């Protein structure tokens, strides 16, 4: 007996909700970055569950593309964080206010 599709979707939704709450609660840029990775993983879980449910390989390929995009995001995002830290000596997102009037 295998758990049904909606069980996987419920787990995916719960993980996505936790990740989105984390993006709002967290204050440093690296914490927000990790919560975004958590949300991407929640979406990946629903892709794999649908791929299993319909017996189609397309969902798993989408997961592969999402992983590549997450790797790009990690490289560029951490580069931005390091540059920001070098200029401001902090990675608090409240300090990123140079455009504020």
């Amino acid at each position: 007996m295998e758990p049904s599709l909606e069980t996987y979707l419920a787990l995916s939704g719960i993980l996505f909700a936790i990740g989105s709450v984390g993006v709002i609660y967290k204050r440093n840029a690296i914490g927000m970055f990790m919560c975004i990775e958590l949300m991407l993983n929640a979406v990946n879980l629903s892709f794999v569950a649908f791929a299993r449910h319909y017996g189609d390989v397309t969902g798993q390929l989408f997961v592969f593309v999402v992983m590549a995009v997450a790797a790009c995001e990690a490289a560029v995002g951490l580069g931005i964080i390091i540059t920001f830290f070098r200029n401001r000596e902090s990675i608090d997102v409240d300090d990123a206010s140079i455009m504020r009037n």
Partner: protein
Amino acid sequence: MVTVLFYILAGLAIACAISCVYHKNPLFSAVSLIGVFISLACIYLTLSAPFIAVTQILVYAGAIMVLVIFVIMLLNLDEDSPHTNLAYLYGFGGGLGVLLIGQALFVFYAVNRAGQKSVESTAAGQTSSIGKAMYTEYLLPVEIVGILLLMAIVGAMIMSRRLREPSVAASSEE
């Protein structure tokens, strides 16, 4: 058997995710997030997607989290201080979380009412079928992903280089 395994892994994933959001120290958050990745990889194995499970471990737990922990160590971060002037965000975030979890449980309820279709075992998800689909039917997305990775490499190098132009040097002196 698979159901028991799924509930154990799902509980582990949710506990690690809550711990990731809860901890103030970014290093504890990163280790909790690795726990989420590993339990999700085990769930992928029960979903008969071994290729995705291995890629999850390699790319997320192996590459991305090593990079994140490297940056945390490099920047020598202290503990995250709580919001002082943005207290309304706590209410907003809590409301959004309750809304999203309610939506997830509504999907659970609605799909449960709509009747079940039994899952038939297929060959989809085996590594050979993924490779075949990737290089025949979905060749264009794979090429686009390659271009994207190249752009990310160049962008990260440009981003984290120490610039010597006078305008940038002037703006960085606060």
